């Protein structure tokens, strides 16, 4: 059974460019989460999907960030007009349910560097 996969593993871009980060969750998991982990910090929540809809996007820092999950499986995090402060590891997680004890399984992350 494959775990959560994320592509690319590393992305280097220039300030002002547009980037897309992809997440393939564990098959059958209905819930999908995006987190951002800056150096020396724990992961910070960005957005959560239940099926195809974004159930909670309160963690997105501003309107340059957007995420989709059109078919309820693969998700793409999109960042417009990237800034140096966007540099971080972007983690995706999925879970079978959404209860307080449900396990979120994390992917290895995409390390984004904005020059």
């Amino acid at each position, binding site marked *: 059974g494959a775990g959560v996969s994320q592509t690319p593993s590393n992305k280097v871009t220039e300030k002002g460019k547009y980037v897309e980060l992809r997440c393939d969750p564990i098959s059958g998991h209905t819930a999908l989460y995006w987190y951002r982990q800056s150096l020396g*910090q724990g992961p*910070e929540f960005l957005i959560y999907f*239940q099926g195809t809809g974004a159930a909670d996007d309160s963690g997105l820092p501003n309107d340059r960030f957007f995420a989709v999950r059109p078919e309820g499986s693969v998700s793409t995090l999109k960042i417009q007009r990237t800034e140096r402060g966007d540099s971080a590891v972007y*983690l995706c997680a999925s879970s079978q349910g959404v209860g*307080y004890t449900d396990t*979120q399984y994390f*992917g290895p992350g995409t390390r984004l560097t904005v020059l």
Partner: protein
Amino acid sequence: TQLLEQSPQFLSIQEGENLTVYCNSSSVFSSLQWYRQEPGEGPVLLVTVVTGGEVKKLKRLTFQFGDARKDSSLHITAAQTGDTGLYLCAGRNSNSGYALNFGKGTSLLVTP
């Protein structure tokens, strides 16, 4: 905003020693989880605690949830080099919804 404070931030010990790391908050959590993260990888769940005063053991690791469900500790007995990594606590409550609130983590280095 990270509601969970972890201490110590860094810890370097020799193999065979015991250690305890702490996770504290002013908020009450419905559940609290401990993860271990290695470089270049995502966090991996170690344990979930939900009941105040709960103690769970995982081999040489002992996890405790505070009576008021605001704090937790992780104790490792006879540390091994394979225990090296970043230990993160994460809580969930009605304010956080489905999101995990993570602390900054404790970076543990176990040397031979």
